């Protein structure tokens, strides 16, 4: 019997460097499957962030540009303006997108750039070993909030999807999660729709993916999934925020 190819052709046959229980592998695979299903491997260009997925070009088998911290939306703008018929997406974490790169992400939304952003929100800085992120929850313990995030001192977690949905140039925003199979399927549906909206040239689309960071949360892979349900979803409500009725 011929050996069945178990992974998408847009994903290279490699072992992830990501920690056990981390969501990056799941989201990478969803992107690979969507790119295969839309048959855009030859015309898609991804922009990699700074953070744990800085070298996602080691796994994505299509063209990828690694960008400076937070600047992926500006880099993507440069690519898309030169190649308007290509599909261009950024893959960014919460430090990259919600802290240092807030100006760049707001302005691609405001300009209605025909780009897609996959926003990985795990409420912590992963790569630099677990510091407070702009999305860190109140009372959450991190290496720079050792007694928990005190909102009176550190401020409040930022809800990026709600903020970007307000921009006229944004046409589609959905917040999804990867904590179980049902939600992974919903995440794939949203990511596919975001890419199709770009193909249709409608404007900016963003999918926020609530993700795990077992290493820095100091939880087991299984407990991490439950932590999303118990702590993240109550603050970052799942569902569509804009463009639910768009048919693509």
């Amino acid at each position, binding site marked *: 019997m011929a050996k069945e190819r178990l992974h998408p052709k847009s994903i290279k046959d490699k072992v992830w460097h990501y920690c056990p229980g981390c969501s990056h592998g799941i989201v990478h695979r969803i992107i690979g499957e969507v790119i295969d299903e839309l048959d855009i*491997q*030859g*015309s*898609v*260009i991804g*922009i*990699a962030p700074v953070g744990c997925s*800085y*070298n996602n*070009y080691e796994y*994505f*088998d*299509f*063209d*990828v*540009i*690694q*960008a*400076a911290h937070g*600047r992926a939306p*500006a*880099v*993507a*703008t*440069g*690519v*898309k*303006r*030169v*190649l308007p018929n*290509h599909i261009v997406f950024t893959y960014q974490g919460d430090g990259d997108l919600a802290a240092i790169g807030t*100006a*760049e992400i*707001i*302005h691609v939304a405001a300009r209605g750039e025909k780009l897609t952003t996959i926003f990985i929100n795990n409420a912590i800085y992963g790569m630099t070993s677990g510091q407070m992120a702009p999305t860190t929850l109140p009372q959450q313990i991190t290496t720079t909030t050792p007694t928990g995030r005190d909102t009176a001192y550190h401020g409040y977690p930022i809800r990026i999807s709600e903020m970007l949905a307000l921009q006229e140039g944004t046409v589609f925003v959905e917040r999804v999660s990867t904590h179980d199979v049902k939600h992974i399927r919903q995440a794939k549906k949203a990511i596919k729709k975001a890419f199709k909206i770009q193909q249709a040239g409608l404007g900016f689309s963003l999918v926020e993916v609530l993700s795990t960071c077992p290493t820095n949360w100091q939880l087991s892979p299984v407990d991490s999934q439950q932590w999303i349900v118990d702590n993240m979803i109550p603050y970052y409500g799942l569902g569509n925020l804009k463009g639910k009725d768009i048919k693509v």
Partner: protein
Amino acid sequence: MGEKVLMKGNDVIAEACIRAGCLHYFGYPITPQTEISHYLSKRLPELGGTFLQAESEIAAINMVYGASSAGARVMTSSSSPGISLKQEGISYIAGAELPAVVINVVRCGPGLGGILPGQCDYFQATKGGGHGDYRNIVLAPNSVQELYELTVKSFDLADKYRMLCMVMADGSMGQMMEAVQFKDEEDIQVYDKPWATNGMGCRGHSNFITSVNVNPDELEKVNLRLQAKYREVEKNEIRYEEINCENADIMVVSYGTTSRIMKNVIKEAKKIGINVGLFRPITLWPYPYEALAKHTDKVKAFLSVELSAGQMIEDVRLAVNGKSNCYFYGRMGGHIPSQKELLDEIIRILEKEDK
């Protein structure tokens, strides 16, 4: 011959960009170079290209990074404080080996400084600016004609070496009107870019562009490759101009706006029997050390004239290597030295050297 027209320096930079086949520009407004944006915002969309006013200089240089990765000729322009903001992107462009053209119409610093002409970004342009071991080619025009020719040339150099080429003008170059003789058609060399990330469909395998490598052996190899490239640029691309250097009593070293004043100082000095030579570096990096060093045994002294507190003087001293005395004369804050004050300084130096 093409048409000869009277044009403002900044407009000529913009026209040169188009004539060099660059149809993509990303910028952010800052005085004294905004006319470049005005010109390109009208012309590039007409030509099917991109003019995009970014949200910041940081975004603009990263749009350049993206457009260059996609294989396009691309330019941004700014002035001193804006160029500081672009340094992160400039370092990434060097690390990822992307061709790009950056125009710096230098004003006065530090900080927000002033909007009048300066040459106080010499260190930043030639010695780094951003982090890491890298170089940019830096061209210093001293006329509107040269703004045109060197801007066109900068695109070729950027593509040839896959590196950033900066045209470093100053506020007076950008704002002055002068005659410029355009060519009927530019001889543009088109470079293959098999490394570009323009979709793998056109080549059958995926490309990636990056400046990161956490393996020390591999990263050192990347750096050695960059350094080998820079040595190649030093071998091939040094440009300078020498005026009245035969039998000169003193060698003035000057570029850009200040070198223009020196041409008149040479004439005035001749009237009183002083032979002043002018050595004008056109490439500030790579710097013409050897060509300048050839004059060390022939002149009594060197004088670096700059619109700064003394920056290029350090390269003059490196070239002269202690074999002659090196003097400096500079003005700051937007002041430009008069012919008289420069001639007086030359007389003072020669009197001191004759003692």
